[in-house]
């Protein structure tokens, strides 16, 4: 016995309301006859029947909304179409629209700490505590290199600074310097007591952020001397001879943690105040150690200064960096007895040395250069 069901009358129709029967139980029906009217969201639609037979029991009360497929009436004398056994649809396993690549397992995240994904991943692998690191990435973010350095204990070259390459470069420059430049050497002891006293008085009134180091005074004295004696501030080209530099850019040798040396230039050092020089020094040393020096800073020093700092020996004789023509060395400041007006006094003394290119200048001029530096250091407030 065929059951007349609520038909699907549109793609987005889920249910319909039977509002009127046009055929009543006992009436004959033929394929194509309109047997009922169904109300849908879009309006009333006349519904046809697709079988021949006689209208039987009507199963759904009028004005009741029923889902598509609900039997509405029985039709006697008509057979339910034997459903051709439709094959079970192939297992329609929904393949993901585009196979998204499997994201690697995320390392345990460290709250609040700004670290790049690459840094987090390596830190997790190498068991490095991110909290202990100082980030050199954008906005102080800890980047992979910071973790690499921490993990490998500083032996690793700074990003951008390859220690082996640097060592090779220094070796080549020094060897060439020794081969080509006829060095002569001079030294003098300079009493820094006045300078250091002035510095101590100046720093006492300052917080650590603004305090000065002795290095700024020695660097400034070299810059002013180089300004006065251009024969020590320029470049020597075997073909064209010596060319004095137009400005004074002091190459300040900086030791890199884990070995290595680089001498970034402090531009126009002669025209900087001590405060400006201190700020420049802090910036340059920090960036030198992180391998983020600009190439311009690496290449245009006009004269170099090398210093042993607090824990070195009395005197340091440098090797000139070609194509420069001079290098000034400062040993460690020590307490030494020196004669002052026929009396022996203990003073803070530093030995300053000058190594210079004999093709450009000679000892006499070199001595006046060193003497002028020493004089400048006696009046620190004027530096």
């Amino acid at each position, binding site marked *: 016995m065929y059951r007349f069901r609520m038909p699907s009358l549109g793609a987005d129709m889920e249910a319909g309301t039977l509002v009127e029967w046009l055929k009543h139980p006992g009436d004959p029906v033929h394929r194509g006859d309109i047997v009922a009217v169904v109300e849908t969201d879009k309006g009333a639609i006349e519904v046809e029947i697709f079988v021949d037979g006689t209208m039987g029991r009507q199963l759904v009360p009028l004005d009741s909304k029923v889902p598509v497929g609900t039997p509405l009436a029985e039709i006697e004398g008509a057979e339910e179409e034997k459903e051709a056994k439709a094959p079970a649809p192939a297992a329609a396993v929904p393949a993901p629209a585009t196979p*998204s*690549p499997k*994201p*690697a397992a995320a390392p345990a995240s460290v709250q609040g700490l700004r670290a*790049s*994904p*690459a*840094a987090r*991943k390596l830190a997790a692998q190498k068991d490095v505590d991110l909290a202990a690191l100082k*980030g*050199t*990435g*954008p*906005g*102080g*973010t800890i*980047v*992979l*290199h910071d973790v690499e350095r921490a993990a490998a204990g500083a032996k690793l070259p700074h990003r*951008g600074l390859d220690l082996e390459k640097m060592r090779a470069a220094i070796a080549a420059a020094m060897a060439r310097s020794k081969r080509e430049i006829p060095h002569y050497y001079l030294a003098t002891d300079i009493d820094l007591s006045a300078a250091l006293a002035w510095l101590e008085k100046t720093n006492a009134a300052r917080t650590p952020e603004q305090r000065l180091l002795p290095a700024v005074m020695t660097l400034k004295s070299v810059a002013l001397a180089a300004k006065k004696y251009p024969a020590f501030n320029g470049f020597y080209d075997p073909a064209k001879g010596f060319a004095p530099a137009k400005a004074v850019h002091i190459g300040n040798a900086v030791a890199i943690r884990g070995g290595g040396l680089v001498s970034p230039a402090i531009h126009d050092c002669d025209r900087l105040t001590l405060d400006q020089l201190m700020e420049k020094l802090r910036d340059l040393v920090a960036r030198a150690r992180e391998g*983020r*020096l*600009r*190439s*311009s800073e*690496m290449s245009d020093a006009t004269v170099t200064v090398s210093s042993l700092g607090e824990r070195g020996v009395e005197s340091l004789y440098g090797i000139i960096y070609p194509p420069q023509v001079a290098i000034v060395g400062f040993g460690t400041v020590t307490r030494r007895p020196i004669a002052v007006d026929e009396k022996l006094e203990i003073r803070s003394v530093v030995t300053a040395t000058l190594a210079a290119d004999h093709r450009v200048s000679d000892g006499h001029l070199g001595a006046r250069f060193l003497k002028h530096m020493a004089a400048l250091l006696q009046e620190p407030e004027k530096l």
Partner: protein
Amino acid sequence: MSGEVTYRDACREAIRDAMKRDPRVFLMGEDVGHYGGCYAVSKGLLDEFGPERIRDTPLSESGFTGLGIGAAMNGMRPIVEIMTVNFALLALDQIVNNAATIRHMSGNQFGVPLVVRMATGAGKQLAAQHSHSLEGWFAHIPGLKVLAPATLEDARGMLWTALEDPDPVLIFEHVMLYNMTGSLAAEAGAVAIDKAAIRREGKDVSLITYGGSLPKAVDAAGQLAKDGVSAEVIDLRTLRPLDDETIMASVRKTRRAVIVDEGWRSGSISAEISARILEQALWSLDAPVARVCSAEIPIPYPHHLEEAALPQVPAILAAVRGTLG
């Protein structure tokens, strides 16, 4: 053709070479014949090949693009020139609903071996309606291939490979490149169209770009080198399919990505590339992916505003520095 040539010359030689080699190839578009092409790419071709194969069309972008599709389905290899991507909006229905769809929808019964060439991009003060850069839209559509030749070799070599492709290929020629001059080998010929190219090696940051923005990226990389920053420049060449392999290899090396895209950033090709980098190379990143795109405004007419709206070298340098910290 060799020695000093322009990008425009390279495009013309590509068309002429294709038409000489394959009788099925013909050029159809507005003013491609007597006028010689809005950007003079097809100058002289009408005299050489005649009106049958160099067909000026009425201003009916949907019409003649549809004709190109039908002709391609029936044995020809048409090159349809839509003067600029701005007018291609009128042909979107034919390109998206017909060209890109028919092979798949017909169960592989019919293909559309059609090439559509369009000028794109801003920089000539043509104002909002003539300065669009919408190649990213088309790169959204499965069934299409989308190319952006940025060098003389690619302008000369991509067309033949595209014509041989059994499916529709769109070629976007940036308006600011037409006058680019350089040397091109006499025997320069067809090039592959499925791979990106590394235009400059580098290890600190990957500059990912295409088409008209390539010269700016190369310029930026040069300036960065002076500051000790080694930038790698990737010329995408194809926007669909994107060459994920080359992009990710570079980003995994440099850990930083800056994408330069003249489209508007929302829903742009740069957004797609950025998403793919996050999906495939997240754990190599040391900084968020940066994007340098056009300002999200209709491109203004006055020179100073247009310059300010478009991605420029200073913005690229700033974006790179942003990733370096």
